[in-house]
């Protein structure tokens, strides 16, 4: 029998920060900071999956679905991308966020994620090129506990990820209660590997 476990639901990724807090740290709270419609919405996470109970519609499930909904409610649509291409890119990285960066990734998975992101970000400021989007925000929340564990040498090795991460964490309103991660300004290791 299939037992699709609740653990494969995206919210788990950040649930290291407390049961339901995970969902908040995962992005919902960020958009709540922004001005929003006068509705009382609740984010619950029964069995590990976030559910957003809206006032005038069915409940919504899933980290990126809820975050996207809240972004629209907050009238911050630019966070979802402005062109079709940008929207698709945002969608893609949101999916990557919930499928690849799972809470229980092993070391090898993490290494590949960082390596791939590092290569991707080589010529980009943000995931969707030149604009901050929801993809950056949720990716930041998803990677925080991983980046926090990196050694100075590893941070240097994934230089582009470090630059991007440092940039995002200093964006106003993003970091919330998460710790500030320190990145060295000077390179300590001459040999890139």
């Amino acid at each position, binding site marked *: *029998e299939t037992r699709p476990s609740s653990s494969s*639901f995206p919210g788990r990724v950040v649930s290291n920060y407390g049961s339901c807090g995970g969902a908040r740290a995962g992005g919902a709270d960020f958009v709540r900071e922004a001005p929003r419609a006068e509705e009382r919405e609740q984010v619950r996470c029964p069995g590990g999956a976030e559910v957003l109970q809206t006032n005038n519609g069915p409940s*919504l499930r899933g980290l*990126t679905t809820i975050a996207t909904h809240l972004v629209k409610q907050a009238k911050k649509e630019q966070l979802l991308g402005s062109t079709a291409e940008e929207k698709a890119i945002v969608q893609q990285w949101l*999916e990557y966020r919930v499928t690849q960066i799972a809470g229980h990734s092993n070391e090898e998975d993490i290494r590949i994620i960082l390596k791939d992101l590092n290569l991707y970000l080589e010529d980009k400021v943000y995931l969707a090129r030149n604009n901050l989007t929801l993809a950056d925000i949720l990716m930041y929340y998803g990677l925080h506990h991983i980046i926090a564990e990196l050694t100075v040498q590893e941070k240097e090795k994934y230089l582009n990820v470090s630059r991007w991460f440092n940039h995002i964490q200093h964006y106003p309103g993003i970091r919330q209660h998460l710790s500030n991660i320190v990145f060295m300004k000077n390179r300590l290791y001459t040999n890139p590997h």
Partner: protein
Amino acid sequence: MPLNPPLSLGPGLLGLGSSALMPHAFPSAGHVVPFLTHPRVPALHLDSGTVLFSPNAICQYFFLLAGEEPNDLTNQWLEWEATELQPAVSRALYCHLVQGKKGGEVLGAIRKTLTYIDQSLTSKATPYLAGEAESVADIVLWATLFPVLRDESCLPDELQALRSWFQTMNLSEPCRSAAVSVLTPKGAQAFKVYLQKQPGPILHWEKPAANEPEEEELAERSLSEEEIAAAAEAWARGPAALPERWQPPSPVLPVEGRRNVLITSALPYVNNVPHLGNIIGCVLSADVFARYCRLRNWNTLYVCGTDEYGTATETKALEEGLTPQQICDKYNAIHVQIYRWFDISFDYFGRTTTTQQTTIAQDIFQRLLARNMLLTDTVDQLRCERCQRFLADRFVEGTCPFCNYEEARGDQCDKCGKLINAVELKKPQCKVCKDSPVVKSSQHLFLDLPQLEERLEKWLEQSWATGNWTANSRFITRSWIRDGLKPRCITRDLKWGTPVPLDGFRDKVFYVWFDAPIGYLSITANYTDQWERWWKNPQQVQLYNFMAKDNVPFHSVIFPCTLLGAEDNYTLVNHLVATEYLNYEDGKFSKSRGVGVFGDMAQDTGIPADIWRFYLLFLRPEGQDSAFSWTDLMLKNNSELLNNLGNFVNRAGMFVCKFFGGRVPPMELGADDKRLLAHVTLELRQYNQLLEKIRIRDALRCILSISRYGNQYIQVNEPWKRIKGHDADRTRAGTVTGVAVNIAALISVMLQPYMPGISATIQRQLCVPQACNVLTDTFLCLLPPGHQIGTVTPLFQKLENEQIEALRKQFGGGQVQAARVASADVTPPGPGGGAVLAGDPQKVKELAEEVAKQADHVRQLKASKAEKGQIDGEVAKLLELKKQLALAEGKTPELPAPKGKRK
């Protein structure tokens, strides 16, 4: 629909949901997405330089281009697809394509996700996932599901909303063309290469122990009002609605207009006492199916017999000082006796050493010869001049040409593991007389398989499309053909076989694998002179071959090629049913180590044949290997049979006797009762569907589910309390009792293929008329109010721990050590019965020493080339000692294993 433009962009889209699974949109080796370590396809490369590697994002992009913005619902579906559905479908495909599992197990991996989709569609009551119109969600989910489902027919009936949605999607032009351009002609097989490279998905739902593939709990399926009403209506029709039982005249022959089912079980080799694995692999599995077919009123013939020709029989005859024919007579009787004990319902159990075999085999041979399907070639073989015969591989020992190990076998070296060609052995020795054999060339005939390959493939394609071939049988066949067919030798330098009717080859016989499958035909010919109506009648006959997986190539490639080449409108196999292996406890059955339970010993355990049948069928290695375990046998007997099935049937009958004077009371069905009827009907249909696909083990669970429903029903309604209450309560007690006893009657019919003895006992106790032994898709009230039942007694006995521990020790092989000391080249004892006594350790020790001493003595006599008479006398003494030892150990004196495996 704004859909068409994006979808016409082509095949890349089909990978959608199946993201990384897209097999050939890009060369598999290349890194399609420059920044990703793992190759991901499909990918969409845009002019701006952007590479989209997520199929869902690509799809979303096309919809955006077409002016369709995503909304909460489509987002939610896409996220759910990526996080839930996709992993489940990957598991299902992996399990189907790489692990070769079938239907139920594959569907099992995605059942919950399918139910989720179905419920969403049902609750929203919209034709599409996100509303009245098709959206990106429909495309994405359809594409993910398509490789596993292909068409809606494999979806369970109860998922109606999903079925109709999937069907609509399948028929839509863009989806159709995407499917055609990407997946056909290889179908989901296209994903195989990709999946094979993946580590096995973590199958949370699959327990490592093969014996418990499913949760033993009653999943409350949602029933529609129509289903409930239909079940109640069918029930009310009563026994009059039963079709008349078809009882074919003897001999059974195909009847125009009827479903004519011809069932064969792989022919057991005569000088092996079959072990439980052999029994479940062929004769018992085929028996269940044959009995089921008869219950369905299908015109059924089940034939089997012993395969008797070949080297092993010759050797055995030499050892026992009998003629090969005498050996065959002796062991054929043993087989017959074992299968009779297991209650196997052959229409005819024959043998291959008959004149019909010679006639038919030679006829087929002449036809092949006349059609130029045979080749001649020279083969080098070792020949022992002293024994006057060519030596089969396993009758030669010598020094390994690779590692110089001195006791290498003719086919393989046990030390370095390398495969050896017997003529390359250094210092070869005949295993029987220890003389050095010489290399002799000999002319042989070969079946020209390469010439027949094309015809074979054409036939296979058709047979696979229409028949039920188990996944392993398809897989094994495919790998044989993939490696290319080579001419195959069909003659041997032996005496004991069907003579080759051709000058220059008259001192040879047919190789057993050319000869043995022809046994099916000749055995039928010994049953009826009109055998050709079964075997040259593919238009009217459906042929089912049952076997263990090691026999597959002979039934799927070699024998069909023989028959195709002979061109006489032969009936070829339509359904090839191969089991995996049954292991014993944690290892293999081993005759030589005395490990495991063999056919002739099962009856000495005191456990009835039907319990053996039940347990073997319960763990039938269907789809994967399983293991016999004594503890598990005890558990299943005590929980499934005693507490579940037996308890239910017994209670139902007892209530009728105690509260209603042995007559079935009147019934007034309420909503709950009708709901129960519908649940039972669903299980019955499931049972039929599974057995039609020869999923014997899974179908057995439907019976157990029904009795679980029954127990629950009695427990909830408490007829034993209500009977003491007021009128309404008493009526209710009557209804519950009447419905329960009718469920018991239905169980007695459904159980018949599995436990014929228990089935008959239930029917005797409840006085179920013989006419009720017909199975349809409806649950009828077979025992109407007023029906008089007989005396009800318990059906099963509890198995106790001590009893099981004693049996485990007895068959565990640990105590055979002492006996093995002497198991050299002496004449073995026959498979005698002998009382089973508890072992006295002191006595065992003394006897073991005596046996060892006597064995040494015999060896010395032989080494010093003493007179035959003297040796024989000492051997007889040794045998007697060994027998005593065996008895003292509390085990049945056993046959020694023929060394090596035949077939």
